[in-house]
């Protein structure tokens, strides 16, 4: 356990050291945030609500989506790509730690750092210039948190799964760019899936992506009733379980592959 707290601290310090990266990253998120907020406001000009969602709710949705995305600093896929390509993975495998947990702790540490680093400044900016992105109620806020945690897990598991493809096809290169694009589009981060034509919206319910962003955000702005929240949380949990099993399965195979073929 002490190893993992140390790793956490190390990641926090590391992240703080890169001030330049930091300011640029705030800038990037800010541009995205302002872009979405003003587009929603323009879209809502003179319209009360669409699909039961008001302008204020939608702006909150957009702001919190940016905050979540800024906090979800997951780099495991890229870490794996570069480690496998450089042939360092075999060295990691002989270390006496559970690597998957090790990597996860690193990303959790980074993401926790991002809460203070990115979420708070961006929140302050939107308080000043946009609107306070308030949750629908205290209940919504309390339910948002576990849903958000499940979203993080789901995204992380998907990322490591994508990263592990490099064990078999090293030349897959930026296969994570496909993942990023799919998540960007189908998670509802840009435009919530419920606004799309029924065919796309229905299909999306059977895919894991909308449980990575849209699910907690829907809860946050109070678009859905309490019973539906339970339903959403359980679907998220099921997806996490499915992905965890997949990761476990692929990981054992990958390790065996490294030991047999020498990475």
């Amino acid at each position, binding site marked *: 356990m002490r190893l993992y707290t140390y790793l956490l601290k190390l990641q926090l*310090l590391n992240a*703080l*050291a890169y*001030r330049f990266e930091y300011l640029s990253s705030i800038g990037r998120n800010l541009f995205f945030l302002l872009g979405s907020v003003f587009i929603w406001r323009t879209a809502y000009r003179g319209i009360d609500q669409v699909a039961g969602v008001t302008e204020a709710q939608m702006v909150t949705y957009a702001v919190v989506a940016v905050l979540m995305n800024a906090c979800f600093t997951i780099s495991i896929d890229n870490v794996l790509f570069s480690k496998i390509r450089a042939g360092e993975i075999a060295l990691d495998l002989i270390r006496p730690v559970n690597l998957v947990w090790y990597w996860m702790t690193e990303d959790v540490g980074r993401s926790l750092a991002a809460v203070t680093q990115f979420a708070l400044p961006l929140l302050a900016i939107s308080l000043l210039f946009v609107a306070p992105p308030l949750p629908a109620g205290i209940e919504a806020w309390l339910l948002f948190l576990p849903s958000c945690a499940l979203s993080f897990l789901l995204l992380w598991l998907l990322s490591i799964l994508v990263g592990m493809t490099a064990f078999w096809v090293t030349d897959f290169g930026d296969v994570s760019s496909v993942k990023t694009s799919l998540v960007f589009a189908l998670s509802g981060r840009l435009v919530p899936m419920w606004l799309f034509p029924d065919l796309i919206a229905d299909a999306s319910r059977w895919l894991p992506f909308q449980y990575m962003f849209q699910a907690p955000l829907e809860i946050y702005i109070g678009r859905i009733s309490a019973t539906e929240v339970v339903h959403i949380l359980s679907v998220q949990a099921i997806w996490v379980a499915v992905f965890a099993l997949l990761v476990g399965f692929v990981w054992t195979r990958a390790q065996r592959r490294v030991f047999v073929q020498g990475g």
Partner: protein
Amino acid sequence: MAHIELEKVCKTFHVTRKQKGLAGAVKGLFRPDQREVHAVRDVSFAIEPGELVGFIGPNGAGKSTTIKMLSGILYPTSGRVSVVGLSPQEKRRAVVQRIGAVFGQRSQLNWDLRLGESYELFKRIYRIADDDFERSLSELCEVLGIGDLLDTPVRQMSLGQRMRGELAGAMLHEPDILFLDEPTIGMDIEVKAAIRAFIRDINQRRNTTVLLTTHDLDDVEELCERLIIINQGRIIEDGPLAALIDSITPHRYLIVECDPGTGEPLAGFAHAHAEILERRDSVVRIRFARSQVSASALISELSARYPVRDVSVQEPDIEDVIRTVYGRDVES
């Protein structure tokens, strides 16, 4: 006319020192800790066409900085640099057309392409005529033995193959001057020998001027007639290899083997200009000042007094020279 000329060349860098910890990083934002580093100080030397010069010194002594100034990559802070009679800074394109360079740590070949394609690119860049290119390439392929590698992607080549490829690439446009920055670093013995043979060949056959920096003293011993030693940005020695060894290490060594079983070898030996360095069994190592006493005088003196079985004289090697030179400079 000298091919390469430096006159009182200085190069000063300003570096910002990173400060420790988070507090230091914050402080560094407002008041950066700036320091002047004198990488090259008052360096002057001239190299004539066709010379093969070893340019040596410890890490950070200013070798790379000097070479970068010679090849037009860096501007000197003060002083005059001239290569083939031109300033590499003002006439960069004309100068680099006539020099070739290999930086051991940095590849000029295109990692993802076949070796021949990188050469094709050099042909275009240096405007090499078709038949010149063919002739130059086949000649280089023969000397370096890389004819079979032209269709191999560079990323699949071994370190030694790649270095030979680099050398050919640097010579394709038949430059007058070749800068070699540690070309043998990390190579195995066979490749080292091939590289040395190549350097000797182009120097003799094409009369190419070669400036070679290296940490490998065998390179120096086998190749260089002249040696320039730089330390802490200053030229501290410049001259023919043999003369340098003579002037810097005035000592020679005498290895004396006595008859075993005759007690301590050379017991009670004392001499004004010689001293015993070590005794091992019946073998004794003596250091003597060559200018004060000749080896033959010393040998006859010894064999008159002691049961000497065998004697050999040991010349100091370049390593002694360099150790002495670096050490001297640190002390001063």
